[in-house]
């Protein structure tokens, strides 16, 4: 049996039973962060805060939302927006956070790509991050259904139809996913379940995995330095804080994270109070109608780039390329054949690849929002082909890169 002594304080009492000092060391005071990293590394913490905002506002929305096809629309647009005290606040926080969280995820992702943070022992950080992206996409889509407006209904119709696999014509699978011939009650209730229970649990598990994946290889840094974390942390603990290349996560590095979070929250609540409209599609303020399609259907801005890859081709090729675009980022650590995990600016052709990819995705996003006519669909087609070609070219150009 373990040996216990009489506790000298509450902390000591807990420490003997919960090892809180050890936990504190592992999680905070002896979790080592390189010093040479910029504000872009704070996006992880920004995401954590945004996720908490989503969770809290979601809990308050959940208490008045009615997951029934007859009542869902009014429970959101009347009960929550007009009757529930500060209901509008929870809805706007939830809506704005759902949109902004993708902006931050994309910044977080492209920071990782720019600095090569997915390579050399950090593959699991990248892969768990991409799994999180998929989980967040599912969460966003299932949440988009819940107000049961026109865009909700037709997005549900179009996205579930993707599962028919084009010429495979797997209508049985689509009907199974919907629980009906069209999106209806069964569909709404099961997406409600996914949105409030199953996917959030998966997200929390994946966040745990994402953090765990970070602990052993540690975060990368702005210069791609290979830091000996053991030696550097020893230096720090021995008192040479200035000479050490690393610092504690808490409370030293946290202060910088929190500074960025503070600036972000000002921006976030500016959006919530003055510009919440961008996260609310006007079409979704019409109740769902299965017999009338809105004139122009488009997803939320964060899915536009992949939607545009689906659009210009025939259904089978479009679906195949859409699938390609969805999963290809997961394989980035293995497609990048260069051993250099330094900023893109110090690498060879990858520098152009990085900025090219960013531009192509912005072009795809813009074209995805515009109607599929004339010039726009031609630009969309060209951008989609360039996107695919760039991914095929990536292993070639990176294997030609010389080692720095």
């Amino acid at each position, binding site marked *: 049996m373990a040996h216990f002594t009489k506790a000298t304080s509450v902390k000591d009492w807990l420490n003997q039973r919960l090892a809180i000092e050890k936990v504190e060391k592992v999680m905070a005071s002896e979790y080592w962060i390189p010093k040479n990293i910029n504000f872009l590394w704070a996006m992880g913490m920004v995401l954590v805060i945004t996720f908490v905002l989503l969770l809290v506002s979601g809990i308050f929305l959940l208490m008045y939302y009615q997951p029934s096809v007859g009542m869902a629309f009014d429970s959101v647009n009347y009960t929550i927006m007009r009757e529930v005290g500060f209901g509008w606040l929870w809805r706007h926080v939830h809506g704005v956070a759902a949109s902004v969280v993708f902006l931050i995820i994309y910044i977080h992702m492209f920071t990782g790509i720019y600095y090569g943070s997915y390579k050399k022992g950090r593959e699991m950080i990248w892969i768990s991050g991409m799994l999180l992206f998929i989980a967040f996409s599912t969460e966003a889509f299932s949440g988009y259904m819940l107000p049961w407006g026109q865009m909700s209904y037709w997005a549900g119709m*179009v996205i579930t139809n*993707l599962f028919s696999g084009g010429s495979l014509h797997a209508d049985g699978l689509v009907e199974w996913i919907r*629980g009906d011939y069209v999106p209806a009650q*069964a569909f709404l209730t099961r997406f409600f379940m996914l949105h409030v229970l199953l996917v959030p649990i998966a997200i929390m598990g994946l966040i745990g995995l994402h953090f765990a994946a970070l602990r052993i290889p540690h975060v990368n840094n702005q210069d791609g330095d290979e830091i000996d974390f053991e030696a550097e942390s020893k230096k720090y603990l021995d008192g040479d804080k200035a000479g050490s290349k690393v610092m504690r996560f808490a409370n030293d590095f946290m202060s910088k994270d929190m500074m960025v979070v503070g600036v972000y929250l000002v921006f976030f609540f500016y959006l919530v109070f003055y510009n919440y409209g961008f996260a609310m599609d006007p079409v979704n303020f019409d109740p769902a109608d299965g017999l009338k399609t809105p004139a122009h259907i488009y997803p939320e801005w964060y899915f536009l780039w992949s939607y545009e890859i689906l659009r210009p081709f025939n259904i089978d090729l479009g679906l195949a390329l859409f699938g390609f675009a969805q999963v290809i980022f997961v394989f980035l650590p293995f497609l990048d054949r260069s051993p250099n995990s330094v900023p893109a600016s110090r690498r060879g052709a990858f520098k152009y690849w990085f900025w090219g990819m960013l531009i192509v995705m912005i072009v795809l996003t813009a074209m995805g929002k515009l109607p599929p006519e004339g010039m726009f669909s031609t630009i969309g087609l060209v951008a989609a082909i360039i996107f695919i070609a760039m991914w095929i070219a990536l292993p070639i150009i990176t294997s030609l890169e010389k080692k720095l």
Partner: protein
Amino acid sequence: MESNSRRGFMGKAFGAVAAVGAVGSLVAMKSSWDPLPSVKAAGFTTLDMSTYEENELITEKWRGKPIFVLKKTAAMVASQTDAQKERDVVVDGMHFMLAIGLCTHLGCIPAYKGEKDGFLCACHGGQFDWAGAVTKVPPPRGFDIPPFKIDGNKLVLGEAGPEYTKMKETGITL
């Protein structure tokens, strides 16, 4: 050694029991997501075909889906190609276009722009003629025809009559 093989046996036996349980629960989970019997039972609609006006598109509802019914004019019938004729539903001598009004691409409802321009899907730019065949991709095929049974001048949607079965066999609809 002996105890190792005993543990190995217990491990395998547990694995077998767990596998049976896992398969069983997967079957239950699959079934729980199937459309409910009440949903399936509500999947029949009867249309009175004598009430339609010529060249006026009427949208009916069957299984929550829009059903296009277009009574063709004599001129339309006369101008039809063989392929278009095969898609006709003839009730009591009247020719109809009958179709599930969802674009076969991703399921939006195309709008009817009249005899000349046919149906236009705003979502992804697909077009169909007034017989329901594709005239501009991305839709992979013409409108699907719902299962129907002709009963005098009535049409029962959701039940496959001989005319529908023939269309299915000849590949006119899926």
